[in-house]
């Protein structure tokens, strides 16, 4: 039901009129949603898994930067007081928000791998977290 429209995004048909279950699902970040009158269907443009992984990587690194700044401002707060406490609060909040996309990406990896049975047992040490081979359902 998906067709490529733009790099990093794909167009999918929403199965329900409400569309909520499919749209809010992690890894399927809604970009725009509209009703296609000609085909009598509701379609949405969503982020592809590959783009989600790249954005989540950048988000994780930015979270690291925010975390380091939060730590520095925490030390400064205990030595000099305000405004470093507020800065620590701000960068802590930023780090937490930036962790949401990596969490969604990990969920997508885990779900995709478990759905296709790629999860490796301790004896099977193939790195299931790497990009799946072409043609794989993962």
């Amino acid at each position, binding site marked *: 039901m998906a067709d490529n429209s733009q790099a990093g995004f794909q167009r999918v048909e929403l199965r329900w009129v409400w569309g909520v279950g499919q749209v809010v699902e992690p890894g399927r970040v809604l970009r725009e949603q509209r009703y296609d009158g000609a085909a009598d269907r509701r379609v949405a443009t969503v982020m592809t*898994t*590959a*783009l*989600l*992984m*790249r954005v*989540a*990587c*950048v988000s*994780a*690194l930015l*979270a*690291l930067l925010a*975390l*380091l700044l939060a*730590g520095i401002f*925490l030390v400064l707060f205990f030595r000099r007081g305000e405004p470093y406490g*507020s800065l620590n*609060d*701000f960068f*802590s*909040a*930023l780090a*937490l*928000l930036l*962790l*949401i996309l*990596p*969490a969604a*990406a*990990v969920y997508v*990896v*885990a779900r995709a*791998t*478990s759905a296709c049975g790629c*999860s*490796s*047992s*301790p004896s*099977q*040490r193939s*790195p*299931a*977290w*790497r*990009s799946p081979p072409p043609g794989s359902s993962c």
Partner: protein
Amino acid sequence: MALAAAGQLLLILRIIDLRTSFVTGGVGVVPVLAWLGVTAWLALAQHLLPEAVGWFGAAALGSAALVTLASIVKLDPATWLLSAALISALGGWLVALGSALLTRG
């Protein structure tokens, strides 16, 4: 995560007081810790993520527990040292996680 972040931002804006932010932060940090544990389990037991993610996640959880204990007992130098260890572990975890996701993408 969103709850804890919202609490911190509302505290900065003085919409909630420090005591209320303890509640939002306390409730909000639970899923963060749970997620750290889940990534460690996914990496070390299920091998869905690189092992480094799991070890750094486990180290972060361990150092978070030790920081809590040290601050309860009021061991000041130890609290600071363990806090530095916690930030280092979280930093390693984020770098390992980011590079794993990049590999996947």
